[in-house]
């Protein structure tokens, strides 16, 4: 049994009247790769932002590596985060962004610049963030997430907006890091990507966790060989249960 890297217990969050997360109970084991799926607005990004301490939960506790994240920030040393929409100071240059983050985290010796080279970002150091296309921003976000060789990687829709070559490069990187026993949490709407990249599946709907098991057992349960169809079967079943 592997130790758990991130545990979430009884996590709830409201935005005004809207209940975004309803007492989520989750456990991410070290060295495994989790796919998190669910319809738009099901609370995936909010859950991720709670783990990162960007959104404050109303109730419940999150621990990373056994330590509660409340009033702590040092645990973010161990997390690489790629946001869904990377927002950066407009007037900064690509090179300046990397230099600044490295300057702020001088104490971390382990630097992984594979993706920067792979995406050829080092050749456009002087481009300002304002002028970048959505895809190039995603490349910057991905490179930043992997930059400090963190043991936990949280990728929020990593392949959205990337060109096919970049998608393949990123996937390759994820798989090679996965083989180094890193913990991954990936959200996506592209089932074939998740099928390749993860072994576990977490399914959220309307802020509730409806499924948390291995992808293989899901396929077995539904009798489907593709993740997309298996998920569709589960979603339909849930819908029927709700109607009943």
């Amino acid at each position, binding site marked *: 049994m592997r130790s758990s890297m991130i545990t979430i217990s009884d996590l709830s969050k409201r935005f005004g009247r809207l209940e975004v997360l309803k007492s989520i109970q989750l456990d991410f084991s070290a060295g495994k790769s989790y796919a998190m799926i669910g319809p738009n607005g099901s609370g995936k990004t909010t859950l991720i932002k709670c783990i990162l301490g960007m959104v404050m939960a109303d109730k419940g506790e999150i621990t990373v590596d056994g330590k509660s994240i409340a009033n702590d920030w040092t645990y*973010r040393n161990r997390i690489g*985060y790629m*946001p869904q929409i990377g927002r950066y100071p407009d007037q900064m240059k690509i090179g300046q962004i990397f230099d600044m983050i490295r300057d*702020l985290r001088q104490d971390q010796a382990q630097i992984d610049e594979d993706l920067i080279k792979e995406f050829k970002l080092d050749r456009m150091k002087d481009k300002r963030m304002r002028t970048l296309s959505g895809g190039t921003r995603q490349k910057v976000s991905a490179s930043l997430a992997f930059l400090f060789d963190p043991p936990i990687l949280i990728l929020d829709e990593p392949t959205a907006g990337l060109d096919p070559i970049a998608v393949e490069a990123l996937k390759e990187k994820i798989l090679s890091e996965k083989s180094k026993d890193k913990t991954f949490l990936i959200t996506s709407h592209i089932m074939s990507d998740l099928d390749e990249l993860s072994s576990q599946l977490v399914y959220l709907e309307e802020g509730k966790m409806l499924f948390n098991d291995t992808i293989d057992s899901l396929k077995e349960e539904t009798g489907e060989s593709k993740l997309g169809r298996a998920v569709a079967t589960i979603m339909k079943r849930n819908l029927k249960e709700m109607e009943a």
Partner: protein
Amino acid sequence: MIRIAKYVLYDIVRNRFILLYTLLLLTVTLSMYSLDSDPGKSTLSLLNIILLVVPLVSIIFTTIHFFNSYEFIELLLSQPVNRKTIFFAEFLSIAFALSCAFLIGVALPMVILNFNSSTPYLIMAGLLLTFVFVALAFGASVSTRDKAKGIGVALLFWFYFTLIYDGFVLYVIYSFSDYPLEKVTLLLVSLNPIDLARIIILLKLDLSALMGYTGAFYKHFFGSSMGIAYSFSFLILWTLVPLMLAMRRFVHKDI
């Protein structure tokens, strides 16, 4: 903190607004001294401009800057950085930049052209007013996610302290003019940083005679070293209290 403040300052210097503000203050100060042959009168006219412009620019610039650095803050928050560190780095760099503008634009020409016993107080009051309104701007900025609303709240603070509050004080004094009000007005003045700064400087310029009996009372109070300490510590409180409230809010804010 210094490392983050460095990047914030770099950003502030880059957008050139601070430079314009410095030039504006410099122009106003120099023209005031060249217009009137009596430097005392110039200082008085200058004072009125400072009491309007410094709070206004401080509060608006800080609010706009805060909302414009939302992406920067978002980026830092996904990194192992303490929220308090980000907050104080933002505060210190903005306050530092605005103070520099004030020192170069007003304090420097004043020291060169017309240095007297009241000058240090005027400079101190200007700097503290800058701090107070930067802190108030942080309060306005963290209270909402909407930039327009944030700037609206900031402007409201400024209107309140420059216009509305004075109207209220006048109303109180007029309505209760049959009672001895010295101590009450002293308290009321302490609740408005701009009034506080104005009175310190007016007394130092020796214009208290214009203010009648209350002026004499103030002179008696503020003229003493106790009074000076009192008013400056109130201005410092006016910085610290809004700043702490804003920080507490920022630490628990959803980004």
